[in-house]
């Protein structure tokens, strides 16, 4: 038994065997023993200071936060998270983060553009940049043995870019291409418009370069933005499948060239407005939101539960969304095809919560009003305990499943390290979700119903109401 199973699983177990030099798992020899717990009666050599599944977080004196998890996977993933999202753009350099996103492969002080591209490809790795309204994330994946090579490129790109003027102006066609692709998607248009209408500053900045700045962002803008925002206190270095001490060394030696906190971003001011984007589309996309809560508060958790209570997307493909209150409520108002879900996004100092509807142009008003009536019903106390349990289970399920992929886990570790400097385990988060009560959820819904609304609509808007008419 042991021998046959052992041989067929030799290739997969080799990594575990190599990395777990200090322990030996005689898996097939013991039955009835849970594989998730360390084996009883095992003598550990003195070097094994930490157990397998811990996520280690350290904060260096320069402010840099280092987080890592040794998951014994054959592929490693390293991310540099920076608080340099588009909310930190100033009025004279709108769109600089869009260019920074595209500029990750440009020449740096240590490697030319050609070398970065071919060097990363030569080891079969990949270098990518994602940016959100708050953070910029540079990720590099590679095989475990090639971590040193790609780490060098990653550090070069994040700390020592040169932004040569001709390379930056060569990015203009790519900016235009990005914008053209974003224009194809109605959702992107509505969500960008929603933020633009909802806030006076910071969070109203778009993820995409505004049309008037395309071709006008110079190398100097990029340098200045990096100078002001890519400082050690605003960065986190996160690794999956790398040793914590290695990351710490890298962080101490290389990621501390710009110390301090850089320029502090302005506090986002919610204003509540409306934006209408008429187009020839045969569907009307509309979002009606109000200010919710900042990300780390318990109120934000209540809004997340409320989102799942009302309905946050399909759980069964091509199903009837039987558990979604919004879908069931709107189905009574119209027989035409539609879609509705709750919209919830939280940032470090503010958040937006509301509903997002997709409907036929003639019944857009009915759909929006029916959806809002459902939210009002929740605010008035029409929620049963069973509904709440179901919503909590769905939220927990979605959260835990997002941690299943290495991208999801890296992002969770990184954003938490950046914002809080520590990692909240999945169990803790599940407990916090369980502690959300009916009154919390009802209060969240009340806050939406009574708050100043922001609305963004796109499509054939003839029958779509204005924000003061809904």
């Amino acid at each position, binding site marked *: 038994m042991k021998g046959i199973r052992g041989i067929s699983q030799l290739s997969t177990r080799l990594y575990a065997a190599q990395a777990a030099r200090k322990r030996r798992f005689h898996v097939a020899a013991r039955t009835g023993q849970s594989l998730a717990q360390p084996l009883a009666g095992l003598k550990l050599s003195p070097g094994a200071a930490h157990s397998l599944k811990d996520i280690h977080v350290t904060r260096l004196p320069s402010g840099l936060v280092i987080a890592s998890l040794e998951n014994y996977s054959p592929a490693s993933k390293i991310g540099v998270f920076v608080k340099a999202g588009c909310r930190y753009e100033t009025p004279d350099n709108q769109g600089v983060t869009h260019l920074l996103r595209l500029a990750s492969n440009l020449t740096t002080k240590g490697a030319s553009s*050609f070398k970065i591209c*071919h060097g990363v490809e030569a080891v079969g790795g990949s270098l990518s940049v994602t940016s959100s309204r708050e953070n910029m994330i540079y990720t590099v994946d590679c095989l475990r043995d090639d971590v040193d090579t790609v780490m060098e490129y990653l550090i070069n790109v994040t700390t020592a870019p040169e932004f*040569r003027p001709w390379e930056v102006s060569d990015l203009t066609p790519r900016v235009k291409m990005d914008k053209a692709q974003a224009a194809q998607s109605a959702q992107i248009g509505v969500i960008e418009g929603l933020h633009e209408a909802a806030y006076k500053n910071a969070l109203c900045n778009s993820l995409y370069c505004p049309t008037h700045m395309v071709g006008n962002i110079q190398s100097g803008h990029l340098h200045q933005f990096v100078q002001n925002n890519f400082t050690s206190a605003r960065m986190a270095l996160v690794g999956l499948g790398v040793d914590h001490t290695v990351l710490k060394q890298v962080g101490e030696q290389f990621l501390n060239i710009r110390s301090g906190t850089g320029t502090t971003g302005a506090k986002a001011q919610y204003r509540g407005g409306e934006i209408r984007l008429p187009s020839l589309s045969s569907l009307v996309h509309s979002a009606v939101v109000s200010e919710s809560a900042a990300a780390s508060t318990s109120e934000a958790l209540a809004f997340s539960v409320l989102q799942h209570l009302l309905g946050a997307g399909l759980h069964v493909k091509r199903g009837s969304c039987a558990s979604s209150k919004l879908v069931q409520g709107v189905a009574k108002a119209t027989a035409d095809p539609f879609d509705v879900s709750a919209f919830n996004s939280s940032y470090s100092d503010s958040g937006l919560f509301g509903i997002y509807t997709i409907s036929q142009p003639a019944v857009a008003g009915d759909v929006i009003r029916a959806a809002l009536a459902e939210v009002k019903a929740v605010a008035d106390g029409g929620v049963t305990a069973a509904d709440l349990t179901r919503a909590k289970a769905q939220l927990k399920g979605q959260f835990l499943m997002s941690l299943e992929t290495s991208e999801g886990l890296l992002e969770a570790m990184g954003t938490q390290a950046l914002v809080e400097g520590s990692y909240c385990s999945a169990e803790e988060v599940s407990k916090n979700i369980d502690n959300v009560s009916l009154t919390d959820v009802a209060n969240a819904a009340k806050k939406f119903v009574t708050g100043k609304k922001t609305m963004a609509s796109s499509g054939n808007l003839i029958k779509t109401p204005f924000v003061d008419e809904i």
Partner: protein
Amino acid sequence: MASRAPVATGRLLLGVRKWYYSLCGFNKIGLMRDDTILEDSDVKEALRRIPETQYNDRMFRIKRALDLSMKQQILPKDQWTKYEEDERYLTPYLEEVIRERQEMEEWMKR
């Protein structure tokens, strides 16, 4: 360089250089040395990279030189480009272009 050798040798070399510079004659129609480089693909790429002000100055000097050459004239002596003022503005960019091309060729050989 000229620490042990007599100063006279340094001055001699400089004199030879200046003599050769005026012998070449492009300074008489107001050009700099980098204006006269043959435009192969490396130089074209380097020209794409220089700052706009320098590019415009280069274009002006070349136009003026073409005009003078057509009229079979040269500039008055006080307007000739002096050896000390001749700035190798294109050379850094050109060297960078050549270095990048060589890196690419090195890589492709492997």
